[in-house]
């Protein structure tokens, strides 16, 4: 060990630059890996959250019409033996929609609030843990449960109030839940949210379409379209499509095992082909698809960074072999086997990789520690961005050592081929 350090000290500048290159590669690996781990945990948390739950959406058919979810369809589903509950869910941006203050809102989604019926909210008890206060119950109106990270960020406490879409709600509970887009940052009773924000808009939209067909200008522009057809199909389809952006239905099966949930989802697909049926596997698959591109990109960037670090080690060790030819020959002359010589260089290259990895890991942990709160303050869309896991840190350290050893193997094998007789003669 002492000798490795002495060898590292011999070419301080060169070794420092190499270690810096490795550290930079490992820094990139840890930062991007922590993002990847966050996305991976999002997929896993989503899978856990959606277990035993099927979500129904409307979809546009081949004629371009969105038939929506009718009362008859809902009744048919409710009547199925396997079904425990069918409940509407409203999902809205908690802060409302304001492109003036947040023109890139679609790229930077803020916290979400969900409107749930009380019975439905109870089914989530197993998935989110209440930390303070209570769950939504019958009779609640402008009452809200808030995720812990948002409560901490906005200094919200049980008994206090929270502004949701410009309306004041009383905070009745604070819950701990995984930081996943599927899991809302606030849960409120369904009816007031629907009555305050959705129903008036939909009523106005329907009225607009109804009146539009009667306007002379429209009749002149599209005389061949019959007013009643427009009312019944196009306008309702448009409204249903708008609805489906924020209103969906959760179906809770009686048998909430994976097999029971999947069987019910399959039955719903067969019996209600006009609906999009998403089961827990479907959620996970969609989450995986959403993060796959990012993960591939981070993997490519990580590979490039670490390959650069590896090439630096190859260069440094190749130079070391050239400079230490005489030493290698002396060692061979006093009985070092080729394997022992290879091992010495591999250990030295591994030590460079390890030191680079330790520095890279320390820098990345420090950067995440300092930068994450600042980024989250600006974004306000979650509890964290990076997820530093022990396995990521072990992987980074192993990667550093492995890269060092791998990069050192070529120069090390050259070291083992040094001809001691020629070298000691100075040839």
């Amino acid at each position: 060990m002492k000798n490795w350090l002495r060898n590292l000290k011999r070419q301080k500048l060169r070794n420092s630059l190499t270690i810096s290159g490795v550290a930079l590669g490992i820094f990139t690996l840890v930062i991007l890996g922590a993002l990847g781990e966050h996305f991976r945990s999002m997929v896993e948390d989503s899978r856990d959250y959606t277990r035993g739950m099927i979500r129904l959406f409307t979809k546009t058919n081949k004629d371009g019409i969105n038939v929506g979810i009718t009362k008859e369809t809902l009744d048919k589903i409710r009547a199925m033996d396997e079904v425990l509950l069918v409940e509407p869910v409203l999902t809205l941006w908690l802060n409302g929609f304001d492109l003036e203050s947040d023109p890139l809102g679609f790229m930077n989604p803020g916290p979400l609030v969900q409107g749930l019926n009380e019975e439905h909210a109870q089914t989530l008890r197993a998935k989110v843990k209440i930390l303070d206060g209570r769950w939504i119950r019958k009779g609640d109106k402008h009452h809200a449960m808030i995720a812990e990270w948002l409560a901490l960020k906005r200094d919200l406490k049980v008994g206090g109030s929270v502004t949701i879409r410009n309306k004041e709600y009383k905070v009745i509970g604070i819950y701990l839940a995984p930081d996943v887009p599927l899991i809302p940052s606030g849960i409120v009773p369904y009816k007031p949210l629907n009555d305050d924000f959705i129903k008036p808009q939909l009523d106005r939209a329907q009225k607009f379409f109804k009146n539009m067909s009667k306007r002379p200008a429209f009749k002149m522009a599209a005389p061949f379209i019959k007013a009643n057809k427009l009312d019944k199909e196009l306008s309702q389809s448009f409204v249903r499509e708008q609805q489906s952006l924020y209103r969906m239905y959760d179906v809770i099966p009686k048998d909430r095992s994976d097999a029971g949930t999947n069987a019910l989802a399959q039955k719903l697909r067969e019996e209600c082909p006009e609906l999009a049926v998403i089961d827990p596997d479907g959620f996970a698959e969609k989450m995986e698809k959403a993060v796959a591109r990012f993960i591939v990109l981070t993997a490519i960037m990580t590979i490039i960074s670490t390959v650069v670090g590896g090439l630096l080690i190859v260069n440094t060790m190749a130079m070391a072999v050239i400079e230490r030819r005489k030493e290698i020959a002396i060692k061979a002359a006093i009985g070092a086997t080729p394997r022992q010589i290879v091992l010495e260089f591999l250990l030295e290259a591994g030590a460079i990789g390890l030191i680079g990895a330790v520095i890279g890991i320390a820098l990345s942990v420090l950067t995440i520690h300092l930068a994450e709160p600042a980024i989250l303050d600006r974004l306000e869309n979650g509890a964290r961005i990076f997820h530093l896991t022990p396995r990521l840190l072990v992987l980074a350290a192993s990667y550093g050592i492995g890269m060092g050893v791998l990069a050192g193997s070529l120069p090390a094998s050259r070291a083992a081929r040094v001809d001691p007789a020629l070298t000691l003669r100075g040839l």
Partner: protein
Amino acid sequence: MTKETAIYCSGLTKVYPAPEGHLEVHALRGLDLEIKVGEQVAITGPSGCGKSSFLNILGTLDRPSAGQVKVFGQSIEDLNPKERALYRRNTAAFVFQQFHLIPTLTALENVSLPLHYAGVNAEEARERADKALAKVGLDHRKGHLPALLSGGEQQRVAVARALVTEARLLLADEPTGNLDGATAKDIMALLLESIGDQRTLIVVTHDPEIAAQIGRRIQLRDGLIEKDELSKKVES
């Protein structure tokens, strides 16, 4: 009592290939030689007569082009790289003209290095290296790097390194070539005194005074033995 054979060479030949357009170099041209266990032999002769080539072949740093070499009954001409390394570790030890110490290691670490490669544990290696350094009179300089030692001291460290493994064959290539007269005498005296009668010593030297201190003198010329004689002291 007849002593066992330490080194047996028959038709030993070494030819160095030459670059295109040049003649090959014939360093040894069918050398026949036998050296007994415990003998001290000086190999002398003009530059290019094959002295160092002979020593390198005996130390397995080089391979003969033809002929047979046996050291303590073991044929060494066809050893693989690992076997050659083990042979250098266990059977033959070198002392070089240029000392050839590792500059980043202290005297003690240099001496214990062959033991490290032999897998001797660190504590035992340190004890044995300590003793070897004490034997060459350098126990007070064991923590010094080679750059802080005089030429004579560096060569003493090299001798200690050669002795520490208790190899039966000691190969010294111009061990006094870089030393002044007085120091050269000291080093030779040290070598001769240290090896005892169970080790075989072969010293390559230009210096007739050094050769005169050694029991058997073999003079080479053009890759062949020109003269092989015993000193008067040994004869008597």
